[in-house]
């Protein structure tokens, strides 16, 4: 009886793997879990792998490149079919990537690229930070429909590449529009509390009624700023329009509550496109493009934010 049940159970467990994927094993070297977004990326990657019946070997590098290199070598030694790598830094990968190439294991970069010859990796799946800013700017231009607008901007950590690129993209987005101008721009360090503090000073320095819109480089700062606007006796989302980037669950909640107007998604689903490309490549050798850009999707009140919030809140953000 027992033996029979065990056999049956294992047969059931093995069936989908045989049926759907050709028994793929893929190694994933993740940077760590320094932010909610990163945690969500890990969760989504695992979900995507499970959906396709892929055996995903996960390695958390705790922000250290040497851990990532170790993980990749161990993947190579285990003879995985492919490797996903979210590189912690841009340089120093040539050697280990060559080892992977020698073992004929394709490597797909997630979320960031590296300074290495292009033939050492299959493709890179990343978002386009400048593009995200541009979408946010474009949304505001459409929203204002020709009306003038005094904008305040909450920048990310000074000198970080998301802060530089998202600022540049937004400025490009509003470049053509008459009457749209950024009147104050200050860093909120990507944090909620600094977002709130800096917004408070904006409100006082400009006068709340003279601010038409807020552009924040991430949702956390926007969520902080919303509280500052409320405490100043104004209605966020109405008196001051708010657009930010990332589309974390709390932003969807704020949009659902009418306190925020738009957010642009930095999708944690880098693995989906990456696995698609990998499966195609492994099946018949179709070489994907060297850069797969993820979609920078715009969410506004028109979407069902309450539902999205419920869906996203368990991803580990």
């Amino acid at each position, binding site marked *: 009886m027992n033996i029979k049940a065990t056999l049956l159970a294992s047969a059931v467990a093995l069936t989908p793997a045989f049926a759907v994927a050709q028994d793929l094993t893929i190694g994933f070297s993740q940077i760590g879990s320094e932010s*909610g977004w990163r945690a969500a990326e890990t969760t989504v990657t695992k979900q995507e792998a499970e959906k396709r019946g892929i055996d995903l070997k996960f390695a958390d590098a705790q922000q250290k490149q040497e851990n990532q290199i170790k993980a990749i070598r161990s993947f190579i030694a285990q003879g995985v079919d492919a490797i996903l790598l979210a590189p912690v830094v841009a340089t120093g990968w040539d050697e280990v990537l060559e080892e992977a190439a020698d073992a004929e294991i394709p490597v797909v970069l997630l979320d960031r690229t590296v300074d290495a010859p292009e033939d050492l990796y299959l493709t890179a799946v990343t978002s386009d930070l400048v593009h995200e800013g541009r979408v946010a700017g474009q949304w505001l231009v459409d929203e204002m429909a020709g009306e003038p607008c005094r904008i305040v901007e909450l920048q990310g950590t000074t000198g970080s590449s998301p802060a530089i690129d998202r600022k540049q993209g937004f400025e490009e987005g509003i470049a053509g529009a008459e009457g749209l101008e950024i009147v104050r721009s200050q860093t909120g360090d990507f944090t*909620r509390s600094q977002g709130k503090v800096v917004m408070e*000073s904006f409100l006082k*320095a400009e006068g709340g009624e003279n601010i038409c819109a807020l552009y924040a480089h991430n949702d956390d700062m926007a969520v*902080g700023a919303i509280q500052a606007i409320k405490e100043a006796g104004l209605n966020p989302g109405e008196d001051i329009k708010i657009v930010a980037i990332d589309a974390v669950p*709390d932003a969807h909640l704020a949009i659902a509550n009418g306190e925020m107007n738009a957010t642009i998604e930095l999708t944690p689903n880098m693995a989906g496109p990456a696995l698609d490309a990998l499966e195609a490549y492994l099946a018949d050798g179709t070489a994907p493009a060297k850069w797969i850009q993820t979609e920078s999707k715009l969410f506004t009140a028109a979407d069902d934010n309450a539902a999205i919030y419920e869906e996203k809140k368990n991803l*580990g*953000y």
Partner: protein
Amino acid sequence: MPATTPSLFKRITPQLLILAVVIGLNFLVFPDFFDVSFRNGRLFGNLVDVFNRGAPVALLCIGMTLVIATKGIDLSVGAVMAIAGATAASLVTDGYGWGTALLGALATGALCGFWNGFLVAVLRIQPIVATLVLMVAGRGIAQLITEGTILTFNNEGLIRLGAGTFMGIPTPIVIWLALGTLATIGVRRTALGMLIESIGVNEASSRLAGINSRVLLICVYLASGLCAALAGVIVAADIKGADANNAGLWLELDAILAVVIGGNSLLGGRFSIVASLIGALIIQSVNSVILLSGMPPEFNLVIKALLILAILVIQSPRVAHLIYMLRASGPERLPERQRPSVQEPKEDAL
């Protein structure tokens, strides 16, 4: 008691002057700085913001002043803030009331402080190393509590501690003013202040004079942990969420700076909590200048560094001596000649 009031005032005069200058700077870059209105049921204005936003550092520097007075230092306060905020947030999200959450956070802070005190007083580890342990590990602990996310909550009672008002005054202001007063009275109306100073100046002598330095040392680190916990709760309540990664980040340095601007020596000994609190206000006023000036953020740190440098240079003994000499050699130079030369060697005899 009659002797203390004038001497306290004399002690904090330099800090008050600097505060006045920095506030004046605020007024220069933003003429409406002093406008205070009553809006949405609360005091509203830049000056209010300075007091409100200065609350975390003000709270931290109360405990930090005591720790530094014993020749110690507490690098862990920023991390303790994160832990306490995370504790409070996770308690309310688990359905407990705000009172329980506050007590839980304070208990966590006390535990952290006790740990530091134990390392310093019992195991005799150097304070900077002992508290570094928790500074590094603390954020990890906080992240374990929040499970890596920003733990958002909606408990009105808890939120009121950070974002609410008490008779129209933002609660954080009330809290730090109250705690500051309480702490000052606590150390000056009892013998605690003198005993703490005694340990800071010369622990060996103090021990031989019968002072229980071990218990006192643990107590000051405990106090520092409690202050940090309160600051952590306020910061979390302010944004309705516990941000384990960022809550209190680098605030330990601001707290130490506030104590130093308050004219307290890092070598321990004589201390003034009131002066440290003014130090905290000075730092926040400097932040305010930066925010109100509308300069590009690339200049933030440079401006802050320059202003702080200027403050510390003005306070340095050499410059103070120079100012003193310049004043003494004012109009009636010759007859007054003797006084500075009699008084100066005392100060230099360190």
